[in-house]
């Protein structure tokens, strides 16, 4: 990889040993991924979590070491002009009466949030930065963590980010450069798998099913969806999240929607493959069935907002809940960014959800907190996929309406 004299100097320690180490990581990573240069980064999304819950039972030493590494990162300033936002934490900064939301961890997370803010990281604490103001333009160079947001940035917004880990996103934020490889380059944004969609996609969750199905087949490749209407923002969010759950997908093309895919030909950079897979109504049904492993109908958790809910999703949930009561013993949580909750507060949605016995959970999600549960109903394929192992629960993935009905009844009542 060719470095500029300025980059070379940082690598050799001109800005101190810590930034030299971050530079070594970026250069080593770029070299193994085939980058030829480091380019200026416009926009980053990094993780700054206290790791206790995710690494439950970790030694004090491990936690202190990890937090010390984040503290060190936050003792520097983010690169001038770089828009830096923060991914979810593993606790909510609000009071929450569950043992997992340990006050000591909350205190530590608040301290990290303050340090992050001083460093220039905007403490959005969300997995969906594009819902709260971080909306990169077409061609914008990003270094994003959050696998679902990476797919959204590339596929829906036309921005350019590879799948970043925390270490590279922090390095990019502080150094202002990022190695250029993968989907950052035109030639690597070519579709690799043609998916003809004949199923009727009637809900946001149906779009999650499409992603869950295609991610498995696409692997690290780029699926191209043909035959679908333009999704809503929420539908696109579900599609992207599920693609990066079963797959290691960085981007997809939705023909007619993805900025660089006005046609099927454009999505494949010319030659459209003759082979394709079909996502039909049967595949849709089977995909739902694959994430319904429940052995009974009584439920204890309804988890909505994976990825974090938009204000329109919260409006829909509030409308469904108005005048109803969540069954005793059932936890109904709507996960959202703090900025989205502020809008929900102003619109009266928060009050409706709380009067029904639910709550809007900010900064994190139950999977991140690894809240123990027995049986979860959720409208997010990503949540359903990971919750089984992370919380030990049985899961039922369903559209939002049936999720709310289950919350009120205290039991799964089926889809209709």
């Amino acid at each position: 990889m060719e470095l500029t004299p300025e980059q070379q100097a940082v690598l050799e320690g001109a800005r101190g040993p810590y930034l030299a180490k971050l530079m070594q990581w970026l250069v080593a990573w770029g070299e193994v991924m085939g980058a030829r240069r480091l380019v200026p980064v416009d926009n980053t999304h990094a993780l700054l979590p206290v790791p206790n819950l995710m690494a439950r039972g970790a030694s004090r030493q491990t936690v202190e070491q990890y937090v010390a590494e984040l503290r060190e990162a936050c003792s520097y300033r983010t690169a001038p002009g770089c828009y830096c936002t923060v991914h979810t934490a593993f606790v909510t900064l609000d009071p929450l009466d569950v043992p997992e939301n340990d006050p000591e961890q909350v205190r530590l997370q608040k301290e990290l949030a303050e340090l992050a803010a001083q460093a220039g990281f905007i403490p959005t604490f969300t997995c969906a930065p594009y819902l709260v103001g971080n909306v990169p333009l077409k061609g914008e160079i990003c270094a994003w963590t959050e696998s679902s947001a990476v797919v959204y940035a590339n596929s829906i917004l036309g921005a350019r980010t590879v799948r970043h880990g925390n270490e590279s996103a922090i390095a990019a934020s502080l150094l202002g450069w990022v190695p250029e490889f993968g989907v950052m380059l035109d030639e690597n944004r070519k579709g690799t798998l043609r998916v003809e969609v004949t199923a009727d996609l009637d809900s946001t969750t149906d779009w999650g099913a499409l992603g869950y199905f295609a991610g498995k087949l696409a692997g690290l490749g780029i699926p191209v969806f043909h035959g679908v209407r333009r999704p809503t923002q929420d539908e696109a969010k579900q599609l992207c999240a599920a693609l990066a759950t079963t797959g290691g997908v960085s981007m997809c093309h939705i023909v007619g929607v993805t900025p660089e895919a006005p046609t099927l030909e454009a999505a494949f950079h010319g030659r459209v493959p003759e082979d394709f897979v079909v996502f039909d109504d049967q595949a849709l049904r089977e995909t739902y069935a694959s994430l319904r492993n429940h052995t009974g109908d009584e439920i204890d958790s309804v988890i909505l907002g994976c990825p974090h809910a938009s204000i329109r999703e919260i409006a829909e949930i509030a409308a469904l809940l108005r005048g109803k009561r969540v069954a005793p013993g059932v936890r109904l949580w709507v996960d959202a960014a703090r900025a989205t909750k502020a809008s929900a507060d102003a619109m009266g949605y928060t009050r409706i959800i709380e009067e029904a016995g639910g709550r809007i959970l900010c900064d994190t999600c139950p999977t991140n907190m690894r809240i123990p549960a027995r049986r979860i109903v959720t409208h997010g394929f990503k949540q359903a996929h990971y919750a089984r192992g992370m919380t030990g629960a049985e899961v039922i993935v369903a559209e939002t309406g049936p999720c709310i009905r289950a919350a009120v009844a205290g039991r799964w009542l089926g889809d209709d």
Partner: protein
Amino acid sequence: MTETFEIRGKGVVGGRAEGEVLIADTTLSFWGEVDAVTGRVIAVGHPLQGQSLAGRILIIRSTKGSSATPMMLRLAALEGKAPAALVNIEVDSLAALGCIVNGIPMLAGLEENPFEKIRTGDHAVVDADQGILRVTRRRTPR
């Protein structure tokens, strides 16, 4: 009698490690599908569910899923529960980053299909500097 053979590949992240093989033709997300503290795969229905990655030569198709894979590798490494080396067919940027940050050797681009020749429980040496995977068969196949 033990049988030893070599498969050539391409070093992704340099270094040398050896240990017991854990192999499956599958993909894995370290966040959400691995418990960093126990080092075990927790994903329900995953081909490696319940298996420990700690100190193993992990041979899978690629990582996938969450971008917190390097972070979880970091936590596993701090807990002494990280794999000794990673051998992948395809290179996910997240696996490469996690291995770089934690000094875990990584090999890819194998010249032969490992899933046909290698079994869990075999002993392997990964030399990512030379691009060699050396496998010694366990005496009794499981």
